[in-house]
């Protein structure tokens, strides 16, 4: 462990690694967003994996070992696999080259340009807050201690959030075997009960049957 | 002074009864007719009683009688504060009488009567409360309470093809006006720094440390144009004839007779004492706008083919006189303005009631289609003639007194001489022209054949409102001192404070001496 750290802190190595990882991250991210060779969502997803992994490398350079692992574990291991799963499940084809929405295009370029501009300003002005000799280690134990003392309430809230997400996903992906309420015979009344706004026959039979299109 | 004031009853009974009527099933038409007439009647009787006992009533430190003051939202300084002085006593009396008359006239309404009566009572209660209120917030609040039913009544029970357009326009105009006024009122409240909505206290505070001139000049336009829109000040008047043209008679009576006076009352009650320098600053502008009212609307009235539109325009024209009176900013002018407000209330109500009656009988208000009604409807014909005379400003009617007083008042301001001349022309000549033309076309001449079957016989019951309104007109026309006695002291106080700060403290004594003179003194 110590030798690994010393390796990471070696100026030349860490600088080189930083530029390697940073370039790789950015290039992969750019290829996620706009790949000149393929508009295939799978390609985007794969480049996203690469970007995430090289970002984990950056995390390592910043001594955030736990987060580097979690980053790979959660993003690469679960999130993007889910993406791939959905892409394959839905057989999403390559994005067609449609007529470019010029307004959207320029608005996009403009807003991104503005934000980049903002960032450049910020960077020029940002004070050297960096500590002289950074010494923290993003290990599991201190992080865990912080998580369960100072941040215990958000932690609990997140657990509720995960529960909610789980319930939601299960609800959304469960197929209803049949609608609970059978729609009134729509053959005679074309306008009624087209969607699931079907009328419960038990509660409001009169209104359903008298409704006609004028 | 926390025993319940009679004013609370006057305004509260209609509102209370309106809420009670909500519980009555809508097919018991007799009950809610009777109950609402009764409520309006009680309210009127109380108002008459209040008027009669005005002189005997106890006066509080600020010069108000029948005062009740209940804190409502302490943190903002809002309280339920009612009371009368000379300025609003006549208005309340007039309002109550017109409300009663309007309720009686509502027999013409045939559908959804329950809702109509409820709205009518709400409206009457709201407007009576607004006049009685001595708290800025309630002043505005109750006015809006009265205003909203107006829109609904016009929208639901109005007549003619332009109903929707008219409803839309009146709603928009009056809401804009009310909101602009609200801005002004809030600004006033905040600028005073008194953290109170109580008008007398506000006046006291501002008297003690007057608002800077630039602040006054900033706030005043809000009040002027806000209230002005409500009063159909030229050029923001276009909603009025249109709205009255389509409105059912009771609504038109209440609105043009009573509710419309709210803006004027607000100017007198608030702008004159609180923003005197701004008043002076804007005096000429107001006067010119008033001339716009008188001349332009008089001219428009001449061109009207619809009786209701004619009456509506003439009512707008009359507002000009009141504005003139206010613009004069002296005792006589203000007294005259208040007098016209009362008088015009009766007159407008009477006119709209009559036109409603005619419409009910003939089914049309096109002047060209009417004619010779005097023979078929002698009672109504007579009354219409009287109303026209009052509208022209003939002596014997309360309008005459008011108009004359206003002219005197305005004449005493040299800068306005030219305007007075114009107004005289407009008011008297143009008014006479269109009134007589209308009378001739409606009442005389050949009777169109389709009206041959009209029966003029009406029960006594139905004649009551017209008679009542006409009687009031005549009463105050013949014995104006009934009102002027009450108005003068308070008007004097108002003008005094205004004059004080217009000219600076050195002239206080002189200004205070002035008010006791009255052109029509008793």
């Amino acid at each position, binding site marked *: 462990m110590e*030798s690994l750290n010393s390796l990471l802190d070696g100026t030349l190595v860490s600088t080189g690694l930083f530029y390697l990882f940073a370039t790789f991250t950015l290039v992969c991210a750019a290829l996620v967003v706009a790949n000149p060779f393929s508009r295939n969502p799978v390609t985007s997803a794969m480049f996203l994996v690469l970007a995430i992994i090289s970002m984990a490398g950056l995390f390592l350079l910043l001594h955030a070992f736990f987060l580097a692992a979690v980053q*790979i574990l959660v993003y690469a291991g679960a999130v993007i696999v889910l993406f791939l*799963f959905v892409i394959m499940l839905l057989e999403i084809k390559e994005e067609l080259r449609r007529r470019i929405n010029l307004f959207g295009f320029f608005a996009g370029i403009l807003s991104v340009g503005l934000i980049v501009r903002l960032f450049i300003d910020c960077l020029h002005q940002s004070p050297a807050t960096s500590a002289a000799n950074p010494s923290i280690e993003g290990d*599991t134990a201190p992080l865990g201690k912080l998580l369960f003392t100072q941040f215990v309430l958000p932690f609990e809230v997140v657990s509720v959030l995960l529960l909610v997400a789980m319930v939601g996903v299960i609800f959304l992906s469960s197929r209803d075997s049949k609608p609970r309420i059978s729609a009134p015979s729509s053959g005679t009344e074309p306008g009624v009960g087209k969607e699931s706004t079907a009328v419960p026959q038990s509660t409001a039979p009169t209104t359903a049957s008298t409704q006609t299109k004028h | 002074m926390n025993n319940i004031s009679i004013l609370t009853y006057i305004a509260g009974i209609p509102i209370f009864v309106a809420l009670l009527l909500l519980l009555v099933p809508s097919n018991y038409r007799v009950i809610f007719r009777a109950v609402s007439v009764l409520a309006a009647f009680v309210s009127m009787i109380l108002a008459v009683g209040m008027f009669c006992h005005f002189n005997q009533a106890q006066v509080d430190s600020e010069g108000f009688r029948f005062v009740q003051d209940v804190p409502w939202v302490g943190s903002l300084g809002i309280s339920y504060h009612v009371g009368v002085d000379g300025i609003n006593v006549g208005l309340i009396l007039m309002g109550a009488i017109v409300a009663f008359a309007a309720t009686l006239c509502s027999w013409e309404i045939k559908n959804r009567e329950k809702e109509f009566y409820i709205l009518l009572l709400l409206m009457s209660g709201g407007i009576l409360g607004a006049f009685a209120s001595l708290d800025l917030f309630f002043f505005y609040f109750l006015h809006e309470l009265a205003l909203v039913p107006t829109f609904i009544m016009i929208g639901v029970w109005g007549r003619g093809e332009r109903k929707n357009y008219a409803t839309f326009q009146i709603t928009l105009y009056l809401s804009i006006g009310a909101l602009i006024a609200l801005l002004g009122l809030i600004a006033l409240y905040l600028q005073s720094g008194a953290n109170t909505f109580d008008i007398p206290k506000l006046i006291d505070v501002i008297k003690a440390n007057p608002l800077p001139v630039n602040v006054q000049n900033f706030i005043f336009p809000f009040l002027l144009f806000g209230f002005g829109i409500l009063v159909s000040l030229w050029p923001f008047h276009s909603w009025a004839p249109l709205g009255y043209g389509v409105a059912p008679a009771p609504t038109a009576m209440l609105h043009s007779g009573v509710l419309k006076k709210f803006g004027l009352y607000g100017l007198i009650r608030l702008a004159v004492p609180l923003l005197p320098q701004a008043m002076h600053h804007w005096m000429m502008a107001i006067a010119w706008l008033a001339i716009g009212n008188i001349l332009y609307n008089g001219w428009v009235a001449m061109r009207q083919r619809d009786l209701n539109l004619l009456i509506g325009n003439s009512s707008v024209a009359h507002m000009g006189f009141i504005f003139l009176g206010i613009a004069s900013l002296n005792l006589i002018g203000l007294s005259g303005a208040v007098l016209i407000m009362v008088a015009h209330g009766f007159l407008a109500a009477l006119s709209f009631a009559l036109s409603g009656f005619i419409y009910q009988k003939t089914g049309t208000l096109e002047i060209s289609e009417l004619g010779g009604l005097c023979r078929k409807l002698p009672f109504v014909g007579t009354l219409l003639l009287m109303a026209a005379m009052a509208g022209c400003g003939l002596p014997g009617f309360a309008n005459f007194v008011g108009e004359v007083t206003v002219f005197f008042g305005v004449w005493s301001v040299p800068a306005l001489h030219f305007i007075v001349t114009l107004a005289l022309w407009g008011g008297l000549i143009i008014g006479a022209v269109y009134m007589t033309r209308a009378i001739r076309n409606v009442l005389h001449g050949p009777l169109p054949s389709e009206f041959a079957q009209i029966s003029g016989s009406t029960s006594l019951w139905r004649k009551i409102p017209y008679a009542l309104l006409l009687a009031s007109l005549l009463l105050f026309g013949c014995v104006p001192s009934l009102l002027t006695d009450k108005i003068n002291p308070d008007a004097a106080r108002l003008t005094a404070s205004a004059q004080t700060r217009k000219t600076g403290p050195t002239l206080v004594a002189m200004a205070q001496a002035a008010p006791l003179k009255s052109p029509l003194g008793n």
Partner: protein
Amino acid sequence: MDWNFIIFTLVKIVAVLGLLHTIAGYAVLAERKISAWIQDRVGPNRTAPPFIKYVPVLGTLLTRWGIFQPAADGLKFMLKEDFTPAGVRKIYFWLAPAVSVIPSILVVAVLPFGSYLGHQKMVIADLNVGILYTFGIVSLGVYGIVLAGYAANSKYPMFGGIRSSAQMISYEISMGMSVIPVFLIAGSLNLTQIINWQAQHGWLFFYAPLSLIIFLVASFAETNRTPFDLPEAETELVGGYHTEYSSMKFALFFLAEYSNMTASAGMMVTLFFGGWSLPVFGLDHPATTLVAGIAHILIFLVKVCILMTLFIWVRWMFPRFRYDQLMDLGWRTFIPLALVNILITALFLWIRS
């Protein structure tokens, strides 16, 4: 620059890689042999280079054991025609086998396969978050299969890919949660320290048997082994994700599967069976001598082999799960079980402290 460190690390990497591949190759042989025995057969017993029959007894014996079979297999894979079907997505088709092999090899980087040899720790990278690293890398393994399924432009591989992605994500959860009691008890995420703890206090298998069971089952699912070999279910999907592959690419999938098996067996040994330690002959202390060091490595390898035998054994015993049963088992049995396990362990530790 710590050249010493770099050189030794490189040496270790090479050694471990060689070992891993050997084990993977012979695991195939073992699989065939054991399956043969279980099915009352003999298994591969002929393949041998021509000269071997001239070696007296040993030659026959080695031939009978099939020792040369993996070499022959490997040679066959290399020499076979590498056939690329029409209509595949070429890049992914080429990439997929590599992507599936790389994580399976990377996993072993944090496994302590011995205590000390000389002054060198017998682990390539002694990370404090070792187990997290492992899980992270393991979770990447799914990409190879998914991509293979996607690239082949054929319905059976597609099904295999989809199945595998969902399956592996699902079982990763219970796998991850199953080991939490281990860390609770041992108090570290560092694998070396976990082994040290076990050397002192006894194997964690006795402390957290439920964890072992869950971990074991989950690793069956993670390595796509029967009874969870849905992604390659021969009877339904022909060959699943690798249906369209041939030659060396196909071999790489095999290699990945057996490397994964080896790695997970190694992980289980490390977490539950004391790693290189053995509570006899004083072998439960980090080695100071060369002999002890080698003994530790051997102990580790033996344990791994035993566990791999278990893997193989299970394969030839169980029928394949149905897909809904698989998911049901993962989500509705093992995850709650793992949670209860954590809870009980935590409670127990809390009471004891």
